[in-house]
């Protein structure tokens, strides 16, 4: 009997899982430069976080890149001196902590803890990256957040003269799994090339020696959230990670040289604005988990040598044959995948017609991604 379908056998199917990575470079000029003042930054009436877009957010072309917020724990040394949005800053800290760190055996929310020395991170910056860019997760070992760490601040770019990077250099083989939100790695501080000329920006760092890099934050890969210690902006004397010679930074205009302690008197929104002016570049690779089913369409020598194409016949005679003994020929351009009731469920196309006749056999591998 003539037939137009061929059933798949059990060995005609294979399942694969592929991880796709894309490089996501985010230039600081989107966050803090000219573009930022043209509507890329969205603020909210509640004032608990700020959203950064790659284009004026009122435009339908705008893509959400990341959010920015700050918070502190009730046990923080600065908690008694916070005068602005104290509750909201604690709420933010606790919300992120319960999601990313979880609860202890008594049901209390645990604090962010640096796994390298078990020290608590009580004053932190949160950078949740948009799902649009992180996709399924951030690729381990690919994160770089670069900040301008010059002590003084001016809106002329000099804040970026001395820069430091936060990198998860050990992420690919030194990550942690005790978070309820998935895997996370440590963000280590290292001086940027430009800062190296000044002898580096981080206290105790020996340039070129990864073991001397200070741990400054955490990156949660599946959640796509960076948690950065406020100590990034304080010098060693003020309890931070910067060299004393560099000095505690003035986060933004009129903030004073108080480093991250400036959040005591500033709103979350104002602090976010100051932090944005310190972001030089952000980059990471995202990951998309691609689950595929590969269908092996095995076309035997006696399969699919004729066509039901209306042009295939002229008064019922096959055009590509002159006599009955001629070899039938057909040309494949499309593969259709069907259900048992002959409903077309998926289609694959060839880039050019593929000749089929009884002298050849073809295996077309059709991949369907989910």
């Amino acid at each position, binding site marked *: *009997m*003539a*037939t*137009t*379908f*061929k*059933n*798949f056998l059990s060995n005609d199917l294979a399942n694969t899982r592929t991880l796709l990575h894309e490089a996501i470079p985010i230039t600081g000029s989107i966050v803090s430069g000219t573009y930022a003042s043209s509507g890329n930054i969205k603020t909210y009436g509640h004032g608990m976080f700020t959203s950064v877009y790659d284009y004026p957010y009122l435009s339908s072309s705008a893509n959400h890149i990341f959010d920015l917020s700050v918070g502190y724990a009730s046990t923080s040394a600065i908690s008694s001196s916070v005068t602005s949005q104290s509750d909201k800053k604690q709420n933010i800290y606790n919300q992120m902590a319960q999601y990313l760190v979880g609860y202890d055996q008594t049901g209390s929310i645990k604090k962010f803890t640096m796994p390298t020395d078990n020290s608590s991170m009580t004053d932190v910056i949160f950078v949740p990256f948009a799902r649009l860019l992180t996709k399924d997760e951030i690729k381990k070992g690919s994160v770089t957040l670069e900040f301008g760490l010059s002590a003084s601040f001016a809106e002329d770019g000099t804040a970026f003269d001395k820069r430091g990077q936060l990198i998860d250099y050990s992420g690919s083989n030194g990550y942690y799994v005790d978070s309820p939100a998935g895997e996370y790695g440590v963000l280590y501080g290292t001086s940027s090339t430009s800062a190296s000329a000044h002898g580096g920006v981080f206290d105790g760092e020996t340039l070129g020696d990864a073991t001397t890099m200070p741990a400054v934050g955490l990156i949660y890969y599946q959640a796509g959230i960076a948690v950065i210690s406020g100590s990034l902006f304080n010098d060693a004397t003020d309890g931070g990670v910067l060299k004393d010679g560099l000095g505690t930074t003035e986060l933004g205009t009129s903030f004073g040289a108080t480093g991250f302690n400036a959040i005591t008197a500033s709103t979350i929104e104002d602090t976010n604005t100051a932090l944005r002016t310190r972001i030089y570049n952000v980059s990471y690779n995202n990951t998309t988990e691609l689950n595929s089913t590969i*269908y092996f*369409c095995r076309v035997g020598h*006696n399969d*699919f*040598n*004729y*066509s*039901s*194409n*209306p*042009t*295939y*016949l002229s*008064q*019922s005679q*096959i*055009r*590509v044959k*002159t006599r*009955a*003994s*001629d*070899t039938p*020929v*057909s*040309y494949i*351009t*499309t*593969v*259709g*995948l*069907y*259900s*048992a*009731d*002959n*409903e*077309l*469920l*998926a*289609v*694959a*196309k060839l*880039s050019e*017609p*593929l000749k089929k006749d009884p002298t050849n056999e073809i*295996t*077309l*591998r*059709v*991949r*369907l991604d989910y």
Partner: protein
Amino acid sequence: MAFLDNSGDIILDAVLTDTGRMRLARGDGSFKIVKFALGDDEINYELYDKNNASGSAYYDLSIMQTPVLEAFTDNAASMKSKLISIPRNNLLFLPVLKLNEVYDASTKRHSTGYFLIAVDDATETYLEVNTSGVSIDGALMGETPGRGGNRIRVDQGLDTTQISPGRTLDPLLVETQYMVEMDNRLGSLVSHDDSNRASISFVDDDSIATYYLSRGTDTQYVNDITDSSNSAQQAISGPRGTRLVFKVQSSLELNTSDYLFDTIGTTDATIAGNVSPNATLKVISSTIRVTGVNTGYRIDIPVKFVKKA
């Protein structure tokens, strides 16, 4: 030593059709791929030049240069012509499906080139006979399909004068199952004697209903063509296989509402040409697609659902 030709194993990326996505979203297990078919929608075999003086390598040069379109996600727009597997390679003729309009007046199309389906009683009465009191060709009664004898008939076989109709069609080439697709919003399939409503196999996301009618089990629809003579009542000139005969019942929505007529229809004055008194008719043009499940050949039958305004 040259490299081996490794072009025999090709990786293609497939896209889900809209129906595939719909079934996947349904989550009831109806999304299950169990078979494949190959298509050649872009190919024009008239370009096959078997008399090319440069030799056989040039016969299909134009065909091989045919640009191929990207995949359509509309399930109805892809795989319109499928490749066929037949265990014999020495066939010179393949069967076709052909509308039989010569059997008698009851199988003819209307002079407009369509089958007209009257969707309500008033329209049936209006289109029953012409000004001469004779049944109007191609006018099917959609509300009461048993009214009148007009029907749609599709014949299958080798439409060639080179082979006598007296010869038996190779059993490999006899179509034993037909797939009929039509817009489920407009009508449904009934047998020519109005004794049976065909069962719908499935309705896709575009409201296209699919019916499967088989020889042996759906005898009200599919039968062998037993006439092996050179009869003028036969549309197939050579050996004949089976025939499919059916009528169409209009949907309740068309019967009771003008919404679809006003949305996807128009008015047509040409139909009323030989009917008295001339009336304004609302019409929806559509097609009924008949495909041979085994032989792959298909035809589109033009129909108009008609309602007296």
